[in-house]
């Protein structure tokens, strides 16, 4: 058994808010192997972005990592000095964010930004950096890279900016890419192009990708495994096929039903009642119980522990649900 590339172990991140301390991430554990794509799925406020940022310690100092560990290739990232951390950021773990325009420097051309990153990561001459920058832009399939290297971000469309941001993230030749809602700001046709590109990069270079998304449909097409996050905790963790064919947690099932399928019969939209709780005002014990149709008395006075219910399939729920698939999905059946 080889060691996983990334191990997140009982990670806890806390923010101070007006309402008191908010446990945005509360004991999240998962692993990512080399070349694997893991989808981290949840609604807004569930802690998925905070988890992603905490891996590179980008939540500090506003928030604090108060427990757990993050190990990359066996080495803990939480004890690194700022200089050591800089060597990991970008060089071993790259990151792309949701808003492609905001993540680029508006006063530098795309080529300048790439050369700056390349020089930070490698010792290379200006000519080598220029050549490498064009190569990277070509690799992310930016049309006409020689000319676009001289463009400023405002001259490019959202999809092109996201390609440049991806080129920047890949400049240090990282082994892991953290992609935080990389296509949410893009149109659906452009989103499909970006998805193809991510899959190509993963296949060509063995890049591992931690894909943060609210869209189960997107994750279905890209990820090997899926972790469902609710209110700072992983409620279900399984290979992608299992999540869609045999979802176990009532929240996962609710999410799948709520997702309007492009080939579903028109009818009532399946909603999950209530709203996602604020991270500073979480319900005690099972955090989903107030919205859960399956709840039993135990849910309100005992924390559900994440347990294995099948090969690589974990769920954190007291209720022993029927293993038969329930989601109104193709292959699921209502």
């Amino acid at each position: 058994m080889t060691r996983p590339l990334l191990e997140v172990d009982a990670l806890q991140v806390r923010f101070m808010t007006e309402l008191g301390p908010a446990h945005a991430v509360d004991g999240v554990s998962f692993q990512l192997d080399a070349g694997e794509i893991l989808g981290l799925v949840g609604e807004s406020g569930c802690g998925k972005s905070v988890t992603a940022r905490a891996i590179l310690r980008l939540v500090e100092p506003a928030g604090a990592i108060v427990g757990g560990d993050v190990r990359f290739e066996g080495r803990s990232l939480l004890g690194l000095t700022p200089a050591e951390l800089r060597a990991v950021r970008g060089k071993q773990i790259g990151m792309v964010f949701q808003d492609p325009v905001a993540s680029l420097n508006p006063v530098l051309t795309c080529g300048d930004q790439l050369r700056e990153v390349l020089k930070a990561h490698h010792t290379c001459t200006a000519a080598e950096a220029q050549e490498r920058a064009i190569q990277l832009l070509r690799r992310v399939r930016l049309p006409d890279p020689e000319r676009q290297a001289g463009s400023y971000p405002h001259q490019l469309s959202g999809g092109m900016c996201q390609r440049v941001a991806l080129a920047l993230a890949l400049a240090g030749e990282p082994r892991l890419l953290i992609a935080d809602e990389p296509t949410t700001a893009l149109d659906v046709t452009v989103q499909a192009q970006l998805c193809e590109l991510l899959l190509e990069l993963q296949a060509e270079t063995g890049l591992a990708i931690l894909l943060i998304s609210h869209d189960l449909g997107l994750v279905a097409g890209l990820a090997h495994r899926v972790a469902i996050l609710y209110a700072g905790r992983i409620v279900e963790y399984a290979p992608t096929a299992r999540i869609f064919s045999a979802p176990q947690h009532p929240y996962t099932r609710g999410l799948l039903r709520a997702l309007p399928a492009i080939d579903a019969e028109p009818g009532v939209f399946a909603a999950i009642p209530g709203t996602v709780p604020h991270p500073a005002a979480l319900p005690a014990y099972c955090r989903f119980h107030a919205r859960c149709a399956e709840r039993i008395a135990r849910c309100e006075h005992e924390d559900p522990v994440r347990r294995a219910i099948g090969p690589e399939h974990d769920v954190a729920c007291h209720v022993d649900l029927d293993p038969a698939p329930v989601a109104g999905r193709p292959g699921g059946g209502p």
Partner: protein
Amino acid sequence: MNAPLLEVRDLYKHFAVPQGFGRAPLVLRAVDGVSFDLQRGGTLGLVGESGCGKSTLARLVVRLTEPTSGSIRVGGEDALVLRGAALRHWRRRVQIVFQDPYGSLNPRLTAGAAIREVLEVHGIARGGAAAERTNALLEQVGLSVVQGRAHPHELSGGQRQRVGIARALAAEPEILVLDEPVSALDVSIQAQILNLLRDLQARLGLTLLFISHDLRVVRLLCQRVDVMYLGRIVESGPALEVFKSPRHPYTRALLQAVPRPVPGARPAAAVTGEPPSPIHIPPGCRFHPRCALRVPGCDVAVPELVEWGPRHRAACVRAGEGGGPPPPFSAPGSQPRLDA
């Protein structure tokens, strides 16, 4: 067939984009010749990507923006000639709900006060009657009287959107224009709001113009759908029919790109590139630079909307060809491509 409640004919909205001293402004053609009808009690979905002009069209229909040319008729009455008190009275008939439930509410008014404001502005109710009507409206959108005393920042996104809907309903409109009403919401909350809209429509007999980039939602909510690309409607028809047998290559590409919750089903990038800017609209068919089916002549002649089936029209010279690609979602797992 009855006369449509809303009739939009040859609507244009061009914006001037200043280029600095001494240079002629460029023209941004946001809405570039759009016509459609909406029957009373019907639901029309308007889909398209960012920059296609769908939000501008929404603002034109409720007269928040004045069109460059064209006509808008509601119940046979020309809406564009109205001024002053007549316009204010007309506004009660056509109301809008915006995308951003954060930005579209006054942060200093409670939910109840925001609803009561509408009642008072339009002279619908005052004093105790207004308070009573406000509570009834809150209840109608699934909010409690206690939540009516909350300010927007104390409400969740879904609750704020309910307040936005209650405000629109306060004017007792016939037509409700919904500009991306659920795109800022989480998927579990989206379904709550969509169900609410469906119930309200059934109960109040509302006519809905539903603007969205999410084809999945439009397909399930709307009877008819119009697909917009760069300011023009490229396909129009009964929603299920358009989604089952799309005629325009752009509609097909949009459908193929929709992520499906099926493991391993990859969204297919059936078109390359991105929509061009509405300042530099390509000649001929405005989709031709991205189209896999283009033939010589597509870059010259502008295709008109032509009827290909019962009330199903598409603006493409190849829309009538049989043996085209199968519907993108016919067989899960297979990935038909336009160029295959």
